[in-house]
């Protein structure tokens, strides 16, 4: 490590006691690999015409070769060979001339390179990518001192000969040694070193710094500044948009450590290290890297005024803000709050409105995360951001407001209007990321309102949209949260319709796109568990549902409690279920989680039914209905009406029940889940039966006919879900009706179906009369 720092002090550019990063203004320098690339470019510009297709492939190769890290000659030649074997041979020949010749051959090579200034027509024109690269290289070469030129030539020889020392071998990073003409058995000693290094690495694995020390680990050589910048930008982009394609956390950290070893001044690497350790939820290293980055950044901006727009005052503010964001991500709300206050104070002192806006948007996010109402703050933020022309913050604020509005029961048209406005903003500024979020949000809102078709349409829209990001242009999907949300909704919507094959397809895709360790994986895990739970409950396999409860509770506590109450209710452990529900309701009322409140009320009502307390269930249900209507939650409102109708039926007012039921029938058939459709029709049939009982003989037959029809439909829905318990009930009722109507063959058929199911199910089901 010593050598890393020692050379710092020979810098003639040290000013103010501070060595500026990149003092010499050299962003790139000549390496043997670069010479090979130059040789390739030279061949491409001068040699005889190459076939069009091959040329095209070569052209595509140029940029990655220029920007990527140094390759060994083997790798390099292989890549070129894949495109055009003829050129690869020519390049090899040229390198051979230089390496096996004398120093003057290399000098001659540089002298004969087409100078970008003279060649106006060629591809190497001075402003082209190739021309720029050549100019960089020529400049760097001309700056070399005598001994450096000699060193370069030596390393070129080594580079070339290492290709022959281990032909086709994949050993990387040994060129320095391979060329040494020692008579010892090289391979054995190398293996020895490798083993030792491994041991060393294992011993010191928990130490982050120790990795830096492993100078002899077979890592890649230093990257030039250009290469490093490209690498960092690429990885940071991938981390944000498509985590799967980025390097694995440990591999990326290794690369970064390597980079920092060779250039401790390269502060951006610290920032990437911060992002990387956020991926693995390592608060220690991420804090360390973040602070280190800003300590370094302060240096580079120090020329400006201390508190102006430029200069390090600015980075101070953002340093505090980033620290707040970090604590926010780790859920340390108090710490985040303190850091945020600090950022706000400094920003205020220096009149930095832009930074203040960022702080404000973090402030309301923090408030939201803490669970308190922050709509006033958000509104302020939107207004101010609009005033300072910060479209990103504006629409982010509006989206946040929409989310809050949706929860608080704002009407749909208001929300949709707001979203439409932000969409205009997004397209105007091509904020592709926010467009994705907006679509996902619309999906969620429609889903909440219980309009499954609309939700499905929005989700499909998002999934089929081409990405607008420049790097991934044309690729359909990114790995952002928005996509995860949309896909989860899609899975749940399909599950509602009983299309479990499609569900498993979607989930498989999710698993591939968002592997379990990534940050959005929790979304699909919860979704998967919920679907499995619902299935198990519908099938009456409560013992299967129970383990899911624990898993759900780990991901979402509220949801877990709710599901636990459901299981307990199904297992007839009424008292426990009731106490949980009471607790849950109190908690949800505190956090204003309306959807869950209504659901809890419904389950509580169901509990009352079990103790035949139909009359006590009634006010609860009415309250739930009022809440659902107030918040425009159609799906839940229909569900409540179902419950209400059932209660009324049990209270002996079937006419009323049927009347109420008709209100809900339409939305359920249009948007509801298959299960709900079946249940609604079954309930309707039972109401019709009850009414028929009071009618005169003639009308009775007609009414019973209607009931038979409803039952038939219900049976169809239930068989779609393969919900055997309910099917058994339906067949029983069908058999009874047919019996009453005197249709013996149909009766016998239904009776047989009932018998079969009953045998299969074994367990005596809950009394038919007692459940919805």
């Amino acid at each position, binding site marked *: 490590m010593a050598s890393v720092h020692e*050379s710092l002090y020979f810098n003639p550019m040290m000013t103010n006691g501070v060595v500026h*990063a990149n003092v010499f203004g050299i962003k790139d320098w000549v390496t043997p690999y670069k010479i090979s690339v130059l040789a390739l470019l030279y061949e491409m510009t001068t040699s005889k015409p190459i076939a069009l297709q091959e040329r095209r492939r070569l052209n595509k190769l140029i940029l990655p070769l220029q920007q990527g890290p140094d390759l060994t000659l083997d790798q390099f030649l292989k890549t070129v060979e894949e495109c055009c074997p003829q050129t690869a041979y020519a390049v090899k020949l040229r390198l051979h001339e230089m390496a096996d010749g004398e120093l003057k051959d290399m000098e001659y090579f540089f002298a004969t390179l087409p100078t970008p200034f003279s060649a106006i027509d060629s591809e190497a024109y001075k402003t082209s990518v190739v021309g720029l690269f050549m100019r960089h290289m020529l400049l760097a070469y001309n700056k070399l001192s005598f001994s450096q030129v000699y060193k370069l030539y030596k390393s070129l020889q080594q580079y070339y000969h290492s290709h022959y020392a281990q032909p086709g071998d994949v050993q990387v990073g040994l060129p320095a040694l391979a060329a040494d003409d020692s008579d*010892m058995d090289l391979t054995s000693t190398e293996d020895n070193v490798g083993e*030792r290094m491994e041991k060393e690495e294992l011993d010191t694995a928990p130490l982050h710094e120790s990795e830096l020390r492993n*100078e002899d680990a077979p890592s890649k050589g230093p990257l030039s500044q250009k290469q490093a910048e490209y690498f960092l930008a690429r990885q940071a982009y991938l981390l944000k948009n498509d985590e799967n394609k980025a390097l694995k956390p440990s591999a990326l950290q290794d690369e970064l450590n390597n980079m920092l070893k060779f250039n*401790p001044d390269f502060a951006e690497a610290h920032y990437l290290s911060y992002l990387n350790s956020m991926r693995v939820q390592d608060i220690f290293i991420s804090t360390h890297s973040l*602070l280190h980055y800003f300590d370094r950044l302060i240096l580079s*901006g120090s020329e400006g005024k201390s508190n102006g727009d430029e200069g390090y005052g600015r980075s101070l503010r953002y340093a505090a803000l980033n620290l707040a964001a970090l604590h926010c991500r780790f859920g340390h709300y108090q710490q985040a709050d303190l850091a945020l206050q600090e950022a706000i104070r400094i920003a205020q002192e220096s009149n930095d409105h832009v930074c203040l806006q960022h702080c404000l948007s973090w402030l309301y996010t923090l408030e939201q995360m803490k669970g308190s109402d922050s709509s006033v703050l958000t509104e302020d933020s939107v207004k101010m951001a609009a005033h300072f022309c910060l479209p990103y913050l504006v629409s982010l604020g509006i989206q946040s407001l929409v989310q809050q509005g949706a929860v608080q029961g704002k009407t749909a048209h208001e929300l949709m209007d707001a979203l439409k406005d932000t969409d205009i903003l997004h397209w105007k500024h091509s904020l592709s990321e926010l467009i994705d979020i907006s679509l996902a949000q619309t999906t969620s809102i429609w889903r909440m309102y219980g309009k499954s078709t609309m939700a499905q349409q929005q989700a499909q829209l998002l999934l089929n949209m081409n990405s607008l990001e420049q790097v991934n242009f044309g690729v359909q999907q990114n790995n952002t949260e928005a996509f995860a949300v949309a896909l989860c909704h899609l899975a749940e919507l399909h599950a509602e319709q009983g299309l479990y094959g499609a569900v498993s397809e979607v989930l498989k895709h999710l698993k591939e796109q968002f592997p379990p360790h990534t940050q959005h994986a929790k979304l699909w895990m919860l979704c998967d568990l919920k679907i499995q739970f619902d299935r198990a409950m519908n099938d009456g396999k409560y013992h299967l549902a129970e383990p899911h409860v624990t898993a759900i509770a780990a991901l979402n506590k509220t949801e877990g409690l709710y599901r636990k109450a459901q299981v307990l209710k199904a297992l007839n452990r009424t008292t426990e279920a009731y106490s949980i529900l009471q607790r849950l309701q109190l908690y949800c009322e505190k956090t204003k989680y309306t959807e869950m409140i209504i659901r809890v009320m419904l389950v509580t009502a169901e509990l009352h039914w079990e103790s035949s307390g139909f009359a006590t269930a009634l006010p609860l249900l009415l309250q739930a209905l009022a809440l659902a209507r107030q918040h425009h939650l159609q799906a839940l409102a229909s569900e409540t009406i179902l419950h209400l109708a059932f209660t009324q039926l049990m209270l002996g007012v079937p006419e009323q029940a049927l009347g109420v039921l008709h209100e809900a029938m339409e939305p359920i058939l249009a948007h509801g889940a298959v299960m709900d459709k079946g249940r609604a029709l079954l309930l309707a049939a039972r109401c019709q039966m009850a009414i028929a009982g009071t009618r005169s003989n003639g009308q009775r037959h007609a009414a019973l006919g209607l009931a038979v029809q409803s039952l038939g439909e219900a049976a169809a829905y239930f068989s779609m879900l393969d919900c055997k318990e309910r099917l058994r009930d339906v067949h029983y009722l069908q058999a009874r009706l047919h019996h009453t109507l005197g249709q013996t063959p149909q009766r016998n058929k239904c009776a047989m179906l009932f018998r079969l199911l009953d045998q299969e199910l074994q367990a005596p089901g809950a009394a038919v009369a007692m459940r919805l």
Partner: protein
Amino acid sequence: MAALCSEFGDLVQIKKQLISVISLCKERGLVHSVKWASELAFALDPLPKNELPPSATFTEEDAQDLDALGLAKSYFDLKEYDRAAYFLRGCRSQKAYFLYMYSRYLSGEKKKDDETVDSLGPLEKGQVRNEALRELRVELSKKHSAGELDGFTLYLYGVVLRKLDLLKEAVDVFVEATHALPLHWGAWLELCNLITNIDMLKSLSLPDCWIRDFFMAHMYTELQMIKEALQKYQSLIESGFSKSTYIISQIAVAYHNIRDIDQALALFNELREQDPFRIENMDTFSNLLYVRSMKPELSYLAHNLVEIDKYRVETCCVIGNYYSLRSQHEKAALYFQRALKLNPRCLGAWTLMGHEYMEMKNTSAAIQAYRHAIEVNKRDYRAWYGLGQTYEILKMPFYCLYYYRKAHQLRPNDSRMLVALGESYEKLSQHVEAKKCYWRAYSVGDVERMALLKLAKLHEQLNESDDAAQCYIIYIQDIFSCGEQLEHAEAREEGKALLRQISQVRDHMEASSTDLFGPLSSNTPVRRVSPLDLSSFSP
């Protein structure tokens, strides 16, 4: 203790051993070990003529290699290492083999240093390394497994391993080297650099030799176990090394580390009397003078050192301190920079430079300097503390918490970090944490005696007047107990005033507590901890 004395009883024997090891090291060009051993030998009484140890016996091989060795040694002394190695390549004797390998090693190091200047670009910095190391390691490891290495070659093998960052292996080899040749101080010193904690020290099996006591004392100083170190050195002095400048300087440094400034100053003055042209450790001496603000003495020291050798790290640090004391911070920074140019691994200079920049209100440069110090040594608590202070000055109390916490982690029993942490927490209105910090600072022995006062004020602010009174009372007792010292006379008066006021406050605390304490707080010594106070504790 008794065992130790009896072992040192035979000073004559020790002197003989020293003389023979001096000639051995001299032949091999190990100048630093020669210096150490000679210093020690000088401290002992001279031997009568007939007692002088006979020069080492010649073997057949030695005789054969004699001429080549002589030639090579002369080249070696002229720093023509490759040339020396070339003429030694065929030699068989152990001595020649060591010199052969050592020349190759030094040649690699020299080239590395030259390369660094000439590297291709700033990014290549880390790539420059001693190319000879790998070859040396391969050859030496072969001989090592064959058991053909003597004490000196083992030492060289250890150095090579350390340079290759194979620290575990290096420790083993150094231990082996000390067993093979206990009198070679270089091996002990290398071992000393590799041991990081006391458990590691205890786990090593070291040869039972009088030199081991020197090593242990040195080790204790390094590990900040000053009490043990002082005990060791004291017993060494008692057993006959009382004239050794080495031991005196080590004791002075140890006193400096535990902030016993008077003792340390006295010892340094004695040292300068005995060895007026000594430059080593003088930077520590200057730190002490700085803390005591002894301008004339510091000025004299600086001028004296410049006359001796102005291009030494220590000299530059002394001059830096001198200018800093005269409040010429730009010049001070310049000299610290020069010290760093002479030796970039000189960690103290980075930190001191950071302090200078702080004085100049150049916060960004200060942050940079501290960061560099941390990069050289992650465990430099002064740099962490300095960073914390910088951010505190920039009014970022939450941000600086991290740095103070780091510093506190590295020095859990240092009250200054705790007080700084407490102040930051207080600014953030985290009163519970602040109180804890202050109380802890008091419990670990408060240096500036401010913690209790701050705690009391905090209690007062929070209207917890009983607790506040309690703290004031302890504070006053504290001040009284060291009332003999003159500098606290003022504080004592203050304490009395406080006591009077407390009784008043108790009567009508809600109404007028702030008014009463308003003027008071202005004359209590609530000054900031000057960053440079820390310089006195550089290890």
